[in-house]
């Protein structure tokens, strides 16, 4: 039985979430701009493949991207509760 929220076919093998590490930083300046001053969060997800092997996947998010990310997980929690 499938409860599909979005029509989404799996483009990749499904791994399971193990843990998340995070780091919040502020980019102050760069070679192209001396005054950047934007906060961003770097997240590392620990994921396990079906055989149990663990890998790290890292990526960055700006503040608005993070807020959207957080909001989506809250929605997920709400749906999981009602199913």
């Amino acid at each position: 039985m499938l409860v599909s929220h979005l029509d989404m076919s799996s483009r990749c093998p499904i791994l399971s979430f193990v843990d998340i590490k995070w780091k919040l930083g502020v980019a102050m300046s760069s070679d192209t701009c001396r005054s950047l001053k934007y906060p961003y969060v770097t997240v590392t997800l620990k994921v396990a493949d079906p055989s149990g092997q663990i890998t790290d996947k890292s990526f960055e998010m700006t503040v608005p991207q993070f807020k959207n990310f957080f909001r989506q997980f809250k929605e997920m929690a709400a749906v999981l509760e009602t199913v």
Partner: protein
Amino acid sequence: FGRLLKTDMDLNQLEAFLTAQTKKQGGITSDQAAVIAKFWKNHRIKIHESLINQSRWDNVLKNMNWRVDLKSQSRHIDQINTPVAIVEMELGKNGQESEFLCLEFDEAKVSQMLKKLSEIEESMTLLTQTA
């Protein structure tokens, strides 16, 4: 413009800078200064965003989709149905092909995630408060 981009001047700094330029020999006229000021005011945010993007060369989260499945696990004669969330994240670096990451979360894992995300949000709020 090079100078404006490098320092990302705010409007006060801009006025001071342009006034100085009009006073210089071989500098700009006050009409030219007005045009530059108007342009900068209108485009500064877009330009700033573009500069920010140029400095993000590690993996960024480009897109995210998710759905909830009901997973059937046959333990005994009765089937146990557990809801799981399947999340597809599109990760990539600037100008490079995306990598898709598909993850499965049960309710406990989503809770774990939410707890950590709350920590991040708390830190972000503190950061913007003290800025």
